[in-house]
C-alpha cells in the first residue's frame, strides 16, 4: 500500500523509515482466565497496517491464547479489543473472519478426511447459481486452490486427496496459503514455521513480508527470534501471560531480542553450563547438575 519496499530487502529494512500507519487492531489490558488459570494478564498490543508485530515467548506463555481471543475462539475476560477504532467482543470465529481477520492456528488446522480443496475453502466456500440450485463452484475453487498452493511452492498432484495423507509441513502450508488468501486486513500466524523445512520457512517468511507490503497488519507468533527479526517491525515478548517487552525494531538488536526471549541471565547460565568441559560426554550427569543448580 503505502510502502515501496519489496520481498526480502523489505524484510531487512523493516519498518524503520515508514510513515506512521493507521492502527487496525488494538488490545488494551486484555486478560483471559481459564477457570483459575490466568493465561493472559493486562496485555496491550497494537497492530498497524503494513506492519508485522511479532509475539514471542516460552511455551505456555499465552501466545496461542492471545491469538484465540483476537480470532474469536475465546472471549477475553478483562480489557478491551478494538478493531478499526470500534470496540468488539467476538463470540465466534465468524465474527472475526467477517472483519477480515484470518488466522493460522497452531493446533487447529485442517480436517484430515476432507480433500485439499474442500479444506482450503472450508467456511468460505464459493457458490454459483441461485435459490435451490445454489451449489459449490468446484471448478473455480480447485483452480484457485491449485494456484495459491503453487505460489507457496508446494506441489500436490491431486487436490481431491484427503489432507490426512499429506505431511505435517504440507498441511501447514495449506493452512497458511488459505489464511493469506482470505486475510483481508489482518493476518495472524501462530508458529507457522515450526513444522516447516528451511525452504518452506523461507517461502512463508516471504509471504508474510508480502502480506505486509500489501498493507495487511500481521501478527506473527514464533519461537524463533531469527525468523522474527527477519521480518518484524515490532516485537512483543510474553512471559507468563504478561508483556515483558514491547519494542519497535529500531530499538532492539537481534542479540538483545534473543537474550530477552530466553530470559537473559538464564541463557548465560545455560550456555556456561553446556560449554563446561568434562560434562558434555555424559548428558545424564549434565541433567543432574542442572537439576541441582535449579534447586
Amino acid at each position: 500500500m503505502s510502502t515501496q519496499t519489496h520481498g526480502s530487502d523489505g524484510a531487512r529494512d523493516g519498518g524503520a523509515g515508514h510513515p506512521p500507519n493507521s492502527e487496525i487492531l488494538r488490545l488494551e489490558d486484555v486478560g483471559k482466565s481459564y477457570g483459575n488459570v490466568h493465561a493472559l494478564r493486562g496485555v496491550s498490543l497494537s497492530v498497524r497496517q503494513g506492519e508485522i508485530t511479532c509475539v514471542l515467548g516460552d511455551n505456555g506463555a499465552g501466545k496461542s491464547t492471545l491469538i484465540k481471543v483476537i480470532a474469536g475462539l475465546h472471549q477475553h475476560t478483562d480489557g478491551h479489543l478494538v478493531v478499526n477504532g470500534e470496540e468488539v467482543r467476538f463470540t465466534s470465529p465468524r465474527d472475526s473472519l467477517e472483519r477480515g481477520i484470518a488466522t493460522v492456528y497452531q493446533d487447529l488446522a485442517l480436517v484430515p478426511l476432507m480433500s485439499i480443496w474442500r479444506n482450503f475453502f472450508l467456511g468460505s466456500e464459493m457458490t454459483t447459481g441461485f435459490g435451490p440450485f445454489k451449489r459449490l463452484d468446484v471448478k473455480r475453487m480447485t483452480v484457485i486452490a491449485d494456484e495459491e498452493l503453487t505460489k507457496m511452492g508446494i506441489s500436490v498432484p491431486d487436490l481431491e486427496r484427503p489432507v490426512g495423507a499429506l505431511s505435517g509441513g504440507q498441511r501447514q502450508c495449506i493452512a497458511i496459503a488459505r489464511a493469506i488468501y482470505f486475510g483481508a486486513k489482518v493476518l495472524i500466524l501462530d508458529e507457522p514455521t515450526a513444522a516447516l523445512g528451511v525452504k518452506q520457512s523461507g517461502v512463508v517468511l516471504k509471504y508474510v513480508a508480502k502480506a505486509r507490503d500489501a498493507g495487511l497488519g500481521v501478527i506473527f507468533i514464533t519461537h524463533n527470534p531469527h525468523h522474527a527479526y527477519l521480518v518484524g517491525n515490532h516485537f512483543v515478548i510474553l512471559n507468563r501471560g504478561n508483556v515483558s517487552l514491547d519494542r519497535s525494531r529500531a530499538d532492539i538488536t537481534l542479540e538483545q531480542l534473543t537474550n530477552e526471549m530466553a530470559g537473559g541471565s538464564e541463557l548465560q547460565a545455560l550456555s556456561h553450563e553446556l560449554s563446561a568441559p568434562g560434562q558434555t560426554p555424559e548428558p545424564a550427569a549434565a541433567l543432574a547438575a542442572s537439576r541441582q543448580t535449579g534447586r
Partner: protein
Amino acid sequence: MSTSVSTPSASPPALRAKDDRVKTRSLTSRLLSRPEIGSLIGAIAVFVLFVVVAPTFRQPASLATVAYAGSTIGIMAVAVALLMIGGEFDLSAGVVVTTSALAASTFAYQLRLNLWVGILVSLLLALAIGAFNGWLLMRTGLPSFLITLGTFFMLQGLNLGVTKLLTGGVSSDSVADMDGFASAQAVFASTIQVGGVGVRITVLWWILFVALATWTLLRTRVGNWIFAVGGDDAAARAVGVPVRKTKIGLFMTVGFCGWFVGMHQLFSFDSIQSGGGVGQEFIYIIAAVVGGCLLTGGYGSAVGSAIGALIFGMTSLGIVYAGWDANWFKLFLGVMLLLATIVNLVVKNQAAKR
C-alpha cells in the same frame, strides 16, 4: 546478523515442478476409494446368492417388494448416515417414528380435526425432538450416545403412557374414516403401477431423498460443513463453520425422516402400535455403517446408506423366498455388518496406498 534461513530469490510460481514421488491416481483407485464401494460389493454378493438359491427372488414383483423393504429402512438410514457423517448418533431414531405416527393420529382423533392438521403437528413435534437432541448436545457437550439414549427412553415411555391413558390399550384409535385419510394415504402409502408391477410410493420418496442428500453432501456448502463437523469440529469452528447449526440441523433431518416413515406406517394401516420402533435405530445405523459411514464421523455417503438398506431388504425377504428359517436373519445381519466394515476398511487402505 546471522540468520538460519534466507529467503529464496527464485519466484515461487516457477516451482511447479511436479513431485515425481507421487503418481496421479488412476480412475479405478479413485472409484475404489469411494465410501460405498464395500457395500456395493456386498450387495452384489447377496443379490447373486439369492438369485441362485431362491427362484421367486428373480420375479419383478419380488424385486419391487425388496425395494419396498429397503425404502422403509432407507428413508431413515439416509438421515442417520448424514448425522453419522456429522459425527453423531441418534438412538431415538427408531421410536421417533412411532411417536410421530401416534402424535398425528391421536391429535387429529382427539380433537376431531382433519388428519392433515395432525400430520402437520406431528411434523413440528418430530422436528422439535431433533432440535432438542441437537441443542442439548451442543449445550452440554455430552456424547450424543447418552443424550439420545435419554430421549429414546423418554419417547418410548411417552408413546406407551399417553396411548394407554387415551385409549386404554396399546394401539391408537383407527383414523380410517377421518377427513384427509385418502389424500394422506396417496402421499405416504400408495402403490404405483410401473410396467405391470406395483411399486410402493415410498420407493420413489426414498430415491428422491437419497438424491437430495447426495447433492447436499457433495455440492453444497452445508454438505461441506457436515463433513467438517464430523471430521474435526474444533477445526471447523475455527474457520467459521456454524457447527451448532449444522449439528442441530442434522438431528432435525433425522426427526423429519422419522416423521415421514411414521406417516407411512400410519397410513399403510389406520392405527399404530404404541410399543413399535424399538430396536430399529440399530438397523438404521447398520445400514449407514455397511454403506461406508465411519463410526467416528467425517466420512461416508448417502448412496452407501441406500445400498446398506437394500442389502437389509434383500436379506430379510431373500431368506423367506429361499424357504429358510427366518430366525437366521439376525445372524446374517451381524455377519453382514462385520464383513462390510472389514471390506470397507481394507478397500480404503488399499485405495489410499495406490
